[in-house]
């Protein structure tokens, strides 16, 4: 059985050790934080200058001045703090973010990431902070469905969509499993979701899946 979205987020969350500074992309990656227990102290950073985000507030305790990069209300943990946008991206660009997890349209076997525009003729693609995070974070993971809604593979030999960052992705979490991007080799299976065979995963991928052996 492939992972559900929640299981995918939990699976990625399990790999985040205490003490890491982590930026989670808008959409599915944001849910990863819900699977990191508060007592495992992970510092969630948001591009808009929030460092040390806590869980979403109950509806009656929303502070309208406190949102994350996805514009959702959040809270600040004890030990959290605020910086302005230039300082926030100094932290990102300067390599001080241990991990960034983004969604993707495609990931190539050399680690190229495409997640911001669906064609060169896209009239007005929205890039946000994805290129900064892709180039700046110490580690870039991707969390996404293994294929598009109409079944097209998203693990590819090389990206057909415009790139966000070059040779940047280190690991991919999908509904079918966990895959490392190994320089010179490509996608290497770390594990498959329960009941998913290598053949199934390979059939859903355009790039070759290697096994670590």
């Amino acid at each position, binding site marked *: 059985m492939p992972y559900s979205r929640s299981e995918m987020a939990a699976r990625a969350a399990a790999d985040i050790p205490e003490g890491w500074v982590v930026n989670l992309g808008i959409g599915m990656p944001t849910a990863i934080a819900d699977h990191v227990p508060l007592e495992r102290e992970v510092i969630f950073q*948001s*591009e*808009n*200058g*929030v460092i040390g985000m806590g869980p979403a507030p109950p509806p009656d305790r*929303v*502070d*309208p*001045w*406190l*949102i*994350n990069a996805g*514009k959702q209300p959040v809270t*600040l943990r004890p030990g959290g703090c*605020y*910086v*302005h*946008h*230039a300082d*926030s*991206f*100094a932290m*990102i*660009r300067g390599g001080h973010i241990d991990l960034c997890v983004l969604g993707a349209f495609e990931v190539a076997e050399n680690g190229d990431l495409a997640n911001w*525009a669906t064609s*060169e003729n896209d*009239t*007005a*693609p*929205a*890039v*946000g*902070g*994805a*290129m*900064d995070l892709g*180039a*700046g974070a110490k580690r870039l993971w991707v969390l996404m469905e293994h294929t598009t809604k109409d079944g097209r593979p998203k693990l590819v030999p090389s990206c057909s969509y*415009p*790139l*966000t*960052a*070059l040779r940047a992705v280190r690991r991919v979490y999908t509904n079918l499993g966990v895959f490392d991007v190994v320089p010179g080799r490509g996608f290497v299976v770390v594990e498959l979701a329960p009941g998913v065979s290598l053949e199934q995963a390979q059939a859903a991928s355009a790039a070759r899946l290697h096994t670590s052996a």
Partner: protein
Amino acid sequence: MINKIVQSLAEAVAGIKDGSTVLIGGFGSVGQPDALIEALIEQGAKDLTCVANNAGSGRTGLARLMELGRVRKIICSFPRSSGSVVFEELYKAGKIELEIVPQGTLAERLRAAGAGIPAFYTATAQGTLLARGKEEREFDGRLYILERALRADVALIEAWEADRWGNLTYRASGRNFNPVMAMAADLTIAQVQHIRELGEIDPERVITPGVYVQRVVRVDRGSPWV
């Protein structure tokens, strides 16, 4: 006596010229100088280049300014946010120019303008469509692109507290682009929730020194924003 506090929104935006480059603070609805944007709509300046993280949403504020045909060009990182209908219409009709800048590069270009740095190198966007036409250069084995400072005539920002010298504090994620935009414009106008007596703001807590601020106007947003 230095007193940067003005008594009306009209006074706050007086003198903004046609053709100006206008920075607009905020990220999402937080720290966005809504009242100043409305005042700019009233004020009438046109042929503007607006710099903001988004390209407006709904049909008010920046979107309204665009709909009125007053914005020639928008420089932003995320034009396609939910409800950016006016921008989409104008852009499809070829009635507005767009420059997309990665969010961190946008912040750094503004900071550079404020800090007297005409240009800097960054790895962000290297090798992508957004690097087209930009100088590429290698330092210590990695490729970077050259980005230019982004200086402006006017910055419209929102802050939490101000005093008559123009010192500003922000609240929570309300900082965002506001402090760097304050540095990057010749005329920085701040909409604030609270006016404090000089010396009342803890000097260790000032985020934007008054040096960067020319005009302050109080706009009480009311509950739940206070």
